[in-house]
């Protein structure tokens, strides 16, 4: 306290500081960021390189222990064109009129966005190339999803993961935003709701998975009367691919909505209230106030928390593993669970290859998201 007071009395304080303090202050940039960078670097490089190497090998047992045989890109080829293709990419069938129409509409949308970018005044060559590459990869993924989900084909683990991520993150965001807006109102008892809404996030993911297995049990679970009413107690919902996927997604939404909820809540709570007061004076209704004032101001927090959730959602593993064991067949198997199951079968190389494919997909989604959405949001703020 006294230090603060005396500092205020010194007109040109910098000249009075000791040389050491001045020097430290000049290198403040490095002091602030280096510890974190060094910790992340030291801890991440070795595992990243080691698992890249492992993904190009095959584990075998020989006299005197185990050995890793170098197989080049063999493990990747197995996933994309070899025997694991149906597991990883799924079973594709020739296009039907319906799927062709859906694809044409989506691709037309991509083309429209590209043309619009080419006509905009801010276009650059690298910006266009980046968008073109994004559109091509996204187009390939969309084709894979449409052709395995909307047809008689069967989605592979990559498609299932994309479905989980898309549905889970959007549902979580909408629910969390609604809940955050409800509890910032000056309602009696809002503190109770705030704490209650955080609870699901606090349970260990393995525990949540077992909890949902208990809840969804058709003969011993609490929903038994419901199942009995529809005569479903004998047929387990686990035998229905979409029923099983739905159960996994409900569990994930239940657990991770609190994560987005608390970030948005803290963000809304720290907004200055003068703008809202002015808007009330001007006679704006609550809907207008939300869209014109609150929403733009929480966009940076939104873009951050959605990116983090996207990355984490791609790694979903406990729920499908415990709830359905990936079944029926591989209908609920996520990429991480795919890597995990073949890892347990001691195909370490193949497992690392699946993990690297996941890394490639997440990196693509992450970079596209940052360049196309987040950069615009932060530039606005």
């Amino acid at each position, binding site marked *: 306290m006294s230090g603060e007071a005396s500092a205020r009395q010194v007109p040109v304080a910098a000249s009075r500081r000791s040389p050491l303090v001045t020097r430290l*202050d000049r290198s403040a940039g490095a002091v602030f960021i280096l510890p974190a960078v060094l910790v992340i670097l030291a801890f991440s490089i070795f595992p990243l390189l080691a698992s890249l190497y492992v993904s190009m090998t095959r584990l075998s047992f020989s006299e005197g222990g185990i050995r890793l045989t170098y197989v080049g890109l063999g493990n990747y080829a197995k996933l994309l064109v070899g025997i694991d293709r149906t597991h990883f990419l799924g079973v594709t069938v020739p296009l039907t009129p319906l799927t062709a129409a859906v694809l044409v509409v989506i691709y037309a949308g991509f083309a429209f966005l590209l043309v619009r970018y080419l006509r905009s005044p801010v276009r650059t060559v690298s910006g266009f190339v980046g968008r073109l590459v994004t559109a091509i990869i996204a187009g390939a993924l969309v084709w894979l999803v449409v052709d395995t989900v909307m047809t008689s084909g069967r989605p592979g683990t990559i498609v299932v993961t994309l479905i989980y991520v898309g549905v889970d993150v959007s549902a979580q965001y909408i629910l969390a935003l609604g809940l955050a807006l409800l509890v910032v109102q000056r309602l009696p008892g809002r503190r109770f709701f705030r704490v209650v809404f955080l609870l699901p996030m606090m349970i260990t993911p393995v525990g949540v998975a077992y909890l949902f297995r208990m809840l969804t049990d058709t003969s011993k679970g609490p929903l038994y009367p419901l199942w009995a009413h529809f005569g479903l107690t004998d047929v387990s919902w686990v035998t229905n691919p979409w029923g099983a996927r739905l159960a996994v997604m409900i569990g994930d939404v239940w657990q991770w909505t609190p994560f987005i909820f608390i970030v948005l809540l803290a963000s809304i709570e720290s907004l200055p209230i003068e703008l809202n007061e002015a808007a009330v004076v001007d006679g704006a209704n609550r809907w207008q106030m939300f869209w014109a004032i609150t929403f733009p101001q929480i966009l940076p927090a939104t873009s951050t928390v959605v990116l983090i959730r996207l990355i984490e959602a791609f790694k979903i593993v406990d729920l499908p593993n415990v709830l359905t064991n990936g079944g029926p067949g591989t209908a609920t198997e996520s990429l991480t669970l795919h890597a995990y199951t073949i890892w347990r079968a001691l195909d370490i190389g193949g497992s690392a290859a699946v993990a690297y494919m996941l890394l490639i997909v997440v990196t693509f989604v992450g970079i596209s998201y940052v360049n196309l959405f987040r950069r615009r949001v932060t530039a606005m703020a």
Partner: protein
Amino acid sequence: MVVSYALLVAWALVVLFPLYWLATTSLKTPLDVNSGPFYIPFRDFKPTLESWRYIFVDLADDTFRPYLNTVVVGLTSTAITLLLGSMAAYGLVRMKYRVRIGAIASFVVALAGAVAVVAAGGPWQLALLGGFAFFLLLLQTVARRFKRALGNDDIAFWMISQRMLPPVAVVIPIYVFFQQLALLDTWAALIIAYVASHLPIVVWLMRDYFQSVPLELEESAAIDGASRYRIFRSIVLPLAVPGLVATFLFVLVFAWNEYLIALFLTSANAQTLPLTVAAQNATRGPQWWYMSVLILIMIGPVIAMAIALERFIARGLLVGAVKG
């Protein structure tokens, strides 16, 4: 108002019902659990503390030791992560960094050299030192010639990209890493692993909260002669308390509940509670009653902390700061 309450209560029920089911299951006998759904204690079934007795009396040390480990590892790693992460986040928000492409290239070349030495059978300690010296040499000579540089956003994206690889791909390398350091089955191993893996999340979340601290306050403090460190400690951190609290809760929850890394890095001594929960899935199927007790005692302290910290996430901390 009525609509608001209806919605709040509806979601509260969605959240609380599974927890209610956990609580009642922990009071049931295996027979009660297996013979169909019973909803209300005393009316539908006779509650018993048998499972609680088993966890606390029969297992005793096998419950308390993981509990202590979870508390120590969770709190320590969260505190360190929050400190390092908010410093880096503040740096990324208020200072300009330029990482030259040449420096990154030098690093990659030096790294490749070190990897080659290890692959040829050299000791890793020597390779690490040699690689570092080589890196410094390149940095001082070749790297200066390249002008292009990466900025703050690129650094931030590099950090978050470290969370993209699923844990199952990296557990074996991480195991080898800590084996070489002779840290397997210790608190230190888990703390280091959790700090490194949760840092990116802290950096990203805290960046947004620091961004919303009014620049005018920092500028006037700088004119008054406060150093960067002092501004950070006395002005920025206190004003970002809501964000710090939210981030603290997350990272604590992540560290508290982490399963796969703990499974590989610990055995008897440093085992944490998520492993104890998963261990209740015995050969005859999951033992729901024990599992329920464990999950309940696991979330107890975290709930207490959430209740204690909730009031810090309160509106109006920043209001008036600029005017005053």
